[in-house]
């Protein structure tokens, strides 16, 4: 089973992939509407917003948490 390189989500079904394209290494949540992968900046924004919405963290703390989580993922390991 593949894990999304950008967020770690397990990808088991066709609908987990951007536009149903199972050759991609990232999931639909990490894709732009055209199916390309979000940039680092876009992913930090979307993950921070998700953490604020679902766990209620302070926005600055959520951003720090998002950057910390992303550092563990293959797509972003080389980022600062």
């Amino acid at each position, binding site marked *: 089973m593949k894990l999304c390189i950008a967020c770690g989500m*397990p990808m088991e079904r066709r609908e987990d992939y951007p536009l149903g394209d199972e050759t991609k290494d990232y999931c639909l949540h990490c894709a732009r509407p055209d199916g390309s992968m979000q940039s680092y900046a876009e992913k930090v924004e979307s993950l921070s917003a*998700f*953490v604020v919405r*679902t*766990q209620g963290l302070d926005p600055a703390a959520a951003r720090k*948490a998002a950057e*910390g*989580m992303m550092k563990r993922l293959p797509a972003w390991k080389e980022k600062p």
Partner: protein
Amino acid sequence: MLSEQIVIKKESQRSLQKEDTRRRILDKAATVFSERGIVETRSSMVARAAGVAHGTLFLHFTTQEALITAVIEDFGDGMCRRLHDLSRRGDGIHALLEAHLQAIAEREDFYVRLVTEASMLPEAARTSLVMIQSTVSFHITRAAEAGMDAGRIRRQPVHMLFNTWIGLLHHYLANRELFAPNGRLIGSRGAELLEYFLSLIEGGSR
């Protein structure tokens, strides 16, 4: 040809042995962390419990921070996998919260150490805990929003719903000697907490 096969076989055995040792260290570290506390545990205690030399432990985990982080990630993988599978089946919030409780119950002593010592842990370990809670909140939020759309759950901010559940659960776990003197909080009070929480969030309209 034969010598190549022997080399491949030996490499494969070494790799299996290495994985086996890593697994044993992770399991024993979780046990020692549960008994002594994560912050209080020295790597030498873990090495002794796992029956490996101190140097061997450092071959697998180069720092104490790396060891703590790996144990937390290992715990989180099991919990997140379980919630992911249930979420996939479209099970509702009741089943998800039950699975959350069950996953904690299986490693309750470790989980209590983790949440009560969180602020004292190294940053990488705290990030691992945030990652676990993010996955848990993702699945609970998804089930809660489906329940809201179906009119079974009152409309409310999802972070308050999630934090109310975690707050209730962690308060009981952090003080479990008061709520469950037998030491097994989830086993003795989990069903009560779940039923009460559901009574708080249920009932709504589309």
